């Protein structure tokens, strides 16, 4: 059986045909991504691969920037926001209509005020919108008002798209959940359209199509259409998994070097390390799981220029001169040597590596004469210029590696940088316990610079240029449900009485007995997970249940604040 993976990136769309379950790469393809035409990019990549019999594919996995782009570029905001029990503050930024009704719960999950259904129905009847985002005060503790409101809306408007905030995330922050729900509601139609178009043209059956999530696992098309927001930032997760699969490593530091940026992520035990805070997209913090990546402005297209008679590595991306079709015209005057605004082509690491003879990519003559002009302008021999530029690129890479490993950002030009750069008499060597795996088209000459400066193995696997697509196809469905049994003390006639509260996907239960509450949580988490795996069309999977107490000490005694029940199901 063959499986197909396609990753739509910012610059290129990569595709790979893999033989399963051996994960042998059969064919690869790379086509430029057309901005604003995701479907077209996927389809062109698909046809470039010339898949033998599309209907026999075991899996067709897509990692797309659809959700990310929509988040960054902003969308139509064609959503009606329903707020229960709380007035949002910046709702105009993401919704075009707002309905505020009475209701909501308190921190324990107990009802504060009953839901004002008549007012809600009245507002929905007058609304012209087809998408609704619902969030209630403490909906993450007790979603019953959200559920009741969504049922009421669907009853009145059967075709509408209704998204509940607490269905997407269990974190506190009513407005954050509303924002997430509104964005999700907008994306539902876009995602549905993409899946339909891909299915229709490729003739791959809908049941074999999967979409990659930001945490690196796959979801079925139904699930993707239901919660498209979860596919935000799936690219980094795909590249990390892909790099590790190609290198055959379960623990690795994966360095993905593209045209404009380098992304570094850590893989632990075969899984991408996730960011604690959730994804940061277009300046907004989204409470959805996504890979913890360190991004730096360094790639094949990063600008190299002359400033105050010295060679510099900039941050913006320009087209490499050795790849420019009109290089001689661009190099007619010496403006290509300076950081002029609006310049199209310039000297880049791609030109540098070509001129040094370390890569065979691009026009060698153009690269050599461009670098010679830079050396002339800076007044140094060409050999020295090469050494200086190599040094600058190496230092920026080393800085990023330490940032990824320590989680601390060292300031550029600071003491940490001086230490990492080394000097005439000393060169620090980073001793790293996991191998570095490089992927992305221009990665090899970059990582060659690290030789001797890191103690670990540097692996640039075969097919690394389509690592993202490999990552999309070589991963599985992963389901995870976490329910918390919260101990809530109350004072009844001077006596402390503890009750045990469990919030489930659609409601809230209170128990007097802790064991009963934990048993209920395990059962419900298992049920919700079975639903999820069934919707993801996975028949064989292993389930793991973990029960963990959250405790604290009081007057020297251990007390329980809550019990976390987490059930994980992984495709086998």
């Amino acid at each position, binding site marked *: 059986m063959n499986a197909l993976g396609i990753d739509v990136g910012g610059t290129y769309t990569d595709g790979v045909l893999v033989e399963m379950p051996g994960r042998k790469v059969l064919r690869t393809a790379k086509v430029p991504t057309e901005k604003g035409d995701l479907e077209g990019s996927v389809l062109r990549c698909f046809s470039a691969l010339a898949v033998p019999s599309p209907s026999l594919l075991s899996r067709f996995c897509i990692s797309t920037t659809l959700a990310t782009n929509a988040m960054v570029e902003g969308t139509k905001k064609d959503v009606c926001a329903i707020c229960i029990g709380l007035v949002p503050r910046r709702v105009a930024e993401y919704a075009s209509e707002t309905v505020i009704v009475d209701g909501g719960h308190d921190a*324990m999950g107990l009802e504060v005020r009953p839901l004002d259904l008549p007012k809600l129905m009245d507002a929905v009847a007058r609304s012209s919108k087809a998408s609704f985002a619902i969030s209630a*005060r*403490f909906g*993450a503790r007790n979603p019953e008002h959200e559920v009741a409101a969504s049922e009421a809306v669907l009853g009145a408007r059967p075709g509408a798209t209704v998204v509940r905030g607490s269905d997407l995330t269990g974190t506190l*922050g009513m407005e954050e959940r509303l924002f997430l729900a509104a964005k999700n509601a907008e994306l539902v139609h876009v995602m549905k359209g993409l899946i339909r178009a891909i299915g229709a043209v490729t003739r791959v059956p809908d049941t074999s199509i999967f979409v990659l999530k930001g945490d690196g696992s796959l979801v079925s098309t139904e699930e993707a259409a239901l919660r498209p927001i979860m596919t935000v930032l799936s690219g980094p997760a795909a590249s990390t998994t892909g790099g590790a699969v190609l290198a055959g490593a379960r623990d690795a530091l994966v360095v993905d070097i593209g045209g404009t940026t380098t992304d570094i992520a850590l893989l632990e035990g075969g899984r991408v390390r996730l960011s604690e805070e959730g994804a940061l997209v277009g300046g907004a913090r989204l409470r959805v799981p996504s890979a913890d990546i360190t991004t730096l402005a360094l790639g094949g297209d990063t600008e190299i220029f002359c400033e105050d008679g010295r060679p510099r590595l900039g941050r913006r991306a320009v087209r490499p001169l050795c790849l420019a079709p009109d290089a001689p015209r661009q190099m007619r005057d010496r403006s290509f040597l300076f950081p002029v605004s609006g310049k199209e082509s310039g000297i880049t690491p791609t030109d540098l590596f070509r001129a040094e003879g370390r890569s065979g990519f691009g026009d060698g003559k153009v690269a050599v004469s461009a670098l010679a002009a830079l050396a002339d302008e800076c007044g140094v021999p060409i050999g020295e210029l090469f050494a200086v530029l190599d040094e600058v690129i190496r230092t920026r890479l080393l800085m990023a590696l330490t940032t990824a490993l320590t989680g601390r950002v060292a300031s550029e030009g600071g003491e940490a940088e001086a230490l990492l750069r080394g000097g005439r008499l000393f060169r620090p060597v980073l001793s790293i316990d996991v191998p570095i795996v490089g992927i992305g088209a221009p990665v090899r000459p970059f990582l060659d610079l690290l030789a001797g400066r890191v103690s670990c193995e540097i692996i640039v696997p075969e097919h690394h240029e389509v690592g993202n697509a490999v990552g999309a196809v070589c991963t599985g469905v992963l389901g995870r449900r976490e329910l918390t049994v919260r101990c809530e003390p109350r004072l009844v006639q001077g006596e402390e009485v503890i009750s045990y509260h469990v919030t489930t996907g659609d409601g809230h239960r209170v128990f007097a007995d802790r064991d009963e509450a934990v048993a209920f949580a395990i059962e419900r988490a298992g049920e919700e997970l079975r639903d999820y795996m069934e919707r993801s069309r996975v028949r064989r999977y292993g389930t793991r249940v973990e029960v963990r107490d959250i*405790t604290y000490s*009081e007057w020297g005694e251990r007390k329980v*604040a809550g019990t976390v029940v987490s059930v994980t199901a992984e495709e086998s």
Partner: protein
Amino acid sequence: MVRHMDILAEEMLELRARDPARYKRLIQEGMLAELGFDIATGSSKMPTVDEVRAKYRPREASYAAIAEAVIAGNRAKVKDLVSASLDQGKDPVDLVTNALMPGIQTQCELYDLGKAFVPEILMSNDAMQGGILLCQQKLGDIPKKGKLATFVAEGDLHDIGKNIVAAILRANGFDVLDLGRDVPTAKVVDAAREHGLQMISGSTLMSTTKAGLKRTAETLEEEGVKVPLACGGAAVSRSFVDTFGNSVYGKSPLDAVKIATEVCSGRDWKEARKALY
């Protein structure tokens, strides 16, 4: 370790010949231990009252006198000295930060060490406020470091700890709104919205009411009021505060000042925890 007494005595005599100063100290410590003094905690680590006073004492004599008057809690004397200094043309801001504040800081640190008591802090604060008032009259308004509130959790009437925290926070240049005791969550959240607070300090003395702190911290988070809750009090432990978000634990009133300083310099509760724990 069992050794022959003769050998031990021999070693002692040898030590006396080689290092008389150390020998003398050891003998003294031994005698003190015999008399029931706790040597380990008394001498080595904890600074003495004099050390603390010396640490904060201003160099200039007139400033040192003001600081001493603040420590003594003598409001009349503080006012006399401050007005004399102002007449001499001293900068009012400099007076507050380098003469009045060191006084209260000494007192706060002594309190942390168990060498000063609540009434002394309150008296010192009162004395200092007298001086600050004079400086303010000269200057207009002295810029505050941040706007905070203090309260005691719902159901709890013990507010002495909260009063100390409020006094010490005020003494350290924060604008403090005291919400009182037995304060329901809704009142705290409303106050945070209305006054644009930067941090709230909540405390409770009873284990039965500590859940109120948790609910308040979570309600602030849920309602999108980005104000962290500094939690403290006898019934509150760090491990308890760590079971919920949007909160930072502080053991002593000076911890409240540290948390407030972190938060008012733009850190969120996670960063404040990282910086202080």
